[in-house]
């Protein structure tokens, strides 16, 4: 009888210990995250407008294209510049020099985008004033059309300010993407 009583007390103490331990664990542990969903994340597409030169080399033409959604500014600008370098899928002519790529971008609180392009932008250019106008128009108007937060674009090359692309149109001041042709 005495033995049975001791067993009962031992069981009660054990049960109390287990309950206490579980309660304490629940209180100290953070809530479990919800069960992870299956891998259903898809890359969104974004409607963009790209500006290329017309075949007559006289003005710019637009091309609507779906490009993968990018979250950060650098990736979005780099994607647009890359699309311009690769050229149009329909009518028009690519005018950005081959090899041009984005090194850095910086957007200040006034909407001024500083765009640092690779040296190929300047070294790969071979043209006159009209060609410069088309290159700058293609680049700046594409950025303005797809990045509403960009109000002005300052172009630098290889981390250094440049006076112009090849001596014709000034780049010492920011350009207005919405300036009429």
């Amino acid at each position, binding site marked *: 009888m005495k033995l049975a009583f001791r067993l009962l007390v031992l069981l009660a103490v054990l049960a109390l210990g287990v309950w206490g331990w579980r309660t304490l664990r629940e209180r100290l542990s953070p809530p479990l995250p919800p069960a992870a969903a299956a891998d259903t994340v898809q890359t969104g597409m974004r409607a963009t407008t790209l500006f290329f*030169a017309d075949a007559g*080399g006289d003005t710019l033409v637009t091309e609507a294209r779906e490009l993968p959604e990018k979250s950060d500014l650098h990736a979005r600008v780099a994607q647009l510049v890359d699309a311009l370098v690769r050229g149009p899928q329909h009518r028009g002519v690519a005018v950005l020099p081959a090899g041009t790529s984005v090194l850095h971008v910086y957007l200040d609180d006034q909407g001024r985008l500083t765009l640092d392009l690779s040296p190929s932008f300047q070294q790969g250019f071979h*043209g006159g004033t*009209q060609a410069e106008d088309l290159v700058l128009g293609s680049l700046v108007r594409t950025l303005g059309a797809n990045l509403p937060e960009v109000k002005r674009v300052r172009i630098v090359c290889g981390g250094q300010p440049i006076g112009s692309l090849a001596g014709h149109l000034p780049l010492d001041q920011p350009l207005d993407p919405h300036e009429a042709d």
Partner: protein
Amino acid sequence: MLLVLLSTLAPLARAAPPPPAGAPSAPVARVDGVPSIGADDFARLLGGVQFWRSDTRKLVIRAIGHRMTFTVDVPIVILDDRTLRLDAPVRSRGGELQIPVSLLTQLPRDTTGMHLVLEAGGTRVRLVPAGGLVGPPVVSVPSADVTRLAIATAHAEEARVMGRGRGHFRIWLPGAAAGPPPDSLPPNALVRRIRAFESSDGVTYELQLAPEVQSYRLVTPARREQLALELSRVPGEGESFAPEGPPGPRALHVVVLDPGHGGADAGVQAGGVSEKDLTLALARQLTGEIEARTGARVLLTRTDDRALAPDDRAEFANRSRADLVIALHFDGVPGTRARGASLWCPPASYAGESDASAGLPLMPWRDVALRHAVESRDLADDIASALDAHGLGPARVRERLPVALLGVNAPGLVLECATLTSPDDLARVTAPDGLHDLAVAIAEGVLDWSRH
């Protein structure tokens, strides 16, 4: 055997010379009463190559992607593997075959749509570029305030305003002029004179407008084979014209010519020529032409092959107290069909919008050329008009402040005289008289500007 074959073919196998500037055409002669065109002219207009087979008396012309075989005294032409029947035989006169013009309507167009047509009156055959036939403008006055010019064209959407000054308002359209512009205009019309200038691929109509015209707009009617230009006395009913300076002659004592590029900076390179050499050679020729016409003293920013910084060029012009600065360049737009000249001057709207009541305007020295924007714009119009009139166009006036005018305290412009990446322009500029023709046209434009 080879020598015999060569003696049969080679001496007579020759590429046709490049067509002349303007709308290429050739005379029509009557041969045995049949209107005919000479085979040399026929091949030249189409940019073809001729081969004469004396043993069979056959002439082969390869042009517009086809092979055409003509046989003397036979009214048949073999076009590739097809037979075209003419209304009269091909004849030989003075060692040249004469081809009945009835062939023209049976010829296919080349891949660009270029083709030959018999002009009204039947005295000339002309090459019509891809744009087809254009105009002439039909002027009407639908109301007291509006004058309307209707221009027949299949490419209204490609119309370009090449200059927006009232004295030289110019519109370019692809194609060839179907006829001369009207000599007489309605007395109450807002247009005083119309001139047409043709280049190899388009027509520029230059309008001299009444001073009271305030706005213009281009309209493409539902019937799309037409472009309409509406001129209005009412401001704000369309685009505005470039501001104008006061009339009267302008003092012209010192002209500074600035040959672009130099030294390690060769500029545009095409066909074995460098822009830096062309600009210097043109500046030398232009010096004499301007001095002879205006009596002004002409100074060059560089007289040899050396590099000059933009600041040095501007300082030279300012120190010389220039009345006029012309920066000479040649353009290049790789990968496109760009051609012709462009003239880059400070935006004239700047001076037009200045407000004297706002007090002394503060302007960075960099932008000082904007003070002379209206005069610069007038100069651009005068030179562009002269280039077009000499068949050196199309010439387009663009309003952008170029690097060459930064810090220049004088009227001026950057003149891209031609587009070297265009084979036509390159051939024209490098022809023996190419630079001389340019110098004459530019000097005439400068003279017009000084007389205003």
